[in-house]
């Protein structure tokens, strides 16, 4: 048994270690040590908690068993998961945090004595508010993340599901939740607590279904944020500083990421959350296909010739690269180009891929040094001096319409100035528009050469002809 004060100090230390873990991520060099701080902080928190409970009887053995079961499942997933599946993995993990928060809240509600919250039927009002909020946010995170997971995995269609009165339904359910929580505080009736959880599960589903597959970077960051707030809510209930600090850190981290993602698409957060954007896809697709404009069609040899004779090449990867798993072939191509004395760099748009930083991880996996990879603001001026831009699996983020046509739905979105380079190689399977449902002007430019093929196959062929 350790004293309550000592315990609180240890929790504070692990909170500080978690802050250092995030701080480490400011640069790749310090990031690995940061992760180690995180692990130490976690081990410390778990260790002192077990000591404080001081129950080394049969329950302790079960604790070890359950930790081992969960740990080995987690470790197995961590080693097996391909890097292209990171968005699904993160969504899946969020759902687990959410559900864990719900479970802890339930046990605190059923057995409040062990947390010093009063007795069943007369739990302290403040604790009751905190635990029901924690449970509600946890439940929303759980079902929301499951929907996000299903959409990312492709099990569920990525297109938004909307129906009449959807927003009103959500509003009514939200008001219901607040009403139920206040009523629970007055009456302390068990069924109310269960109802809150069930309604929150429903809200989680309803919140995520109207959001289109391509808005997933925002959704995933938002759920990240929710999982943090849920943890903080439980932290208040359990009067645990480690949980409160961590919850606040994770909550603000997710919120900032959502903000960055929204800004990358020039859309407001509410616009994304209210959803239904991709719903107009079909209509605009058909209209754009009617008028056939001439495009220049090339093959791997043309592309190889262009790039070999260039002095600088900028590569613009997008989600298509991840789908085709083309990152390794791409690296080979770049190696071959470098042997020919070509300067190569990579340009990454903030919303490329299905989660923040998705492209960077894939390129890192293919052994691309991180100091060759640049963000939008860092590299955008270089396109004007670059000979070839190689667009692989990206589309809307290169569309010049965003700068010129105020009518366009993506007007104002920051885009990569790909068209300013001397020639553009555009690897794409067809002329179909991207998720925004708008035709890319770039296809019809004189300096654009379309390479119609699978991203990986095309890149491999270019490597061969180099």
């Amino acid at each position, binding site marked *: 048994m350790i004293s309550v004060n000592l315990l609180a100090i240890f929790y504070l230390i692990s909170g500080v270690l*978690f802050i250092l873990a*995030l701080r480490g*991520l*400011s640069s*790749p060099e310090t*990031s*690995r040590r940061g992760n180690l701080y*995180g692990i130490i902080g*976690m081990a410390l*928190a778990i260790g002192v908690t077990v000591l404080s*409970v001081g129950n080394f009887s049969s*329950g302790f053995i*079960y*604790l070890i068993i*359950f930790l081992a*079961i*969960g740990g080995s499942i*987690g470790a197995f*997933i*961590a080693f097996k*998961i391909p*890097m292209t599946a*990171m968005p699904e993995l*993160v969504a899946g*993990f969020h759902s*687990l945090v959410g*559900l*864990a928060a719900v*479970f*802890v809240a339930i046990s*605190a509600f059923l*057995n409040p*004595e*062990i947390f010093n919250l009063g007795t069943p039927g007369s739990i302290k009002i403040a604790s009751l508010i905190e635990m029901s909020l924690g449970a509600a946010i946890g439940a929303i995170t759980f079902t929301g993340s499951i929907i996000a997971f299903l959409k990312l995995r492709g099990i569920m269609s990525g297109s938004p599901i909307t129906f009449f009165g959807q927003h009103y339904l959500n509003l009514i359910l939200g008001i219901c939740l607040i009403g139920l929580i206040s009523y629970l505080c007055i009456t302390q009736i068990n069924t109310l607590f269960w109802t809150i959880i069930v309604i929150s599960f429903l809200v989680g589903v309803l919140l995520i279904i109207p959001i289109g597959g391509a808005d997933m970077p925002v959704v995933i960051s938002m759920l*990240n944020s929710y999982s*943090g707030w849920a*943890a903080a809510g*439980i*932290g*208040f209930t359990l*009067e*645990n*500083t480690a*949980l409160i*600090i961590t*919850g*606040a*850190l994770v*909550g*603000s981290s997710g919120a*900032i*990421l959502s903000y960055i993602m929204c800004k990358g698409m020039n859309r407001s957060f509410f616009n994304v959350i209210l959803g239904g954007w991709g719903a107009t896809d079909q209509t605009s697709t058909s209209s754009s296909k009617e008028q056939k404009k001439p495009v220049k069609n090339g093959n791997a040899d043309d592309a190889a010739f262009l790039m070999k004779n260039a002095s600088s090449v900028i590569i613009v990867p997008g989600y298509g690269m991840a789908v085709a798993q083309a990152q390794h072939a791409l690296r080979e191509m770049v190696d071959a180009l470098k042997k020919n004395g070509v300067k190569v760099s990579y340009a990454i748009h903030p919303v490329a891929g299905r*989660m*923040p*930083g998705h492209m*960077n*991880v894939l390129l*890192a996996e293919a052994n691309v*040094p*991180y100091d060759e990879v640049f963000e939008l603001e860092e590299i955008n001026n270089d396109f004007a001096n670059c000979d070839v831009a190689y667009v692989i699996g990206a589309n809307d983020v290169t569309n010049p319409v965003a700068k010129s046509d105020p009518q366009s739905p993506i007007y104002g979105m920051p885009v990569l100035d790909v068209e300013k380079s001397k020639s553009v190689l555009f690897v794409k399977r067809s002329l179909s528009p991207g998720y925004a449902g708008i035709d890319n002007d770039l296809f019809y430019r004189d300096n654009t050469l379309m390479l119609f093929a699978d991203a990986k196959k095309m890149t491999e062929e270019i490597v061969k002809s180099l």
Partner: protein
Amino acid sequence: MEIDPFIFRLSIFILSIFIGYYVVWSVTPSLHTPLMSVTNAISSVIIVGAIIAALAGNSVNVFDTANIFGFLAIILAAINIFGGFLVTQRMLAMYKKKKDKK
């Protein structure tokens, strides 16, 4: 007049939000994916609550209803802790500088 301990916790919470805000803005965009997986792992410190829920209590029976939820939460949080930190480690190990190449 004594200050309610809740106010202290609220202060910690609010200040941590600010720390989180400044720390996360300094994270380089190329590490945003590891940021998400590591925040995922650390938010599983909720396991602390799960352990108390599972082990504490005066019931003779280890698997009382309240305890069962604690044990379930332990499994979920453990998946997240191990999975989150290990996958972050795996990703971070891939980030290399130009010099590292022979």
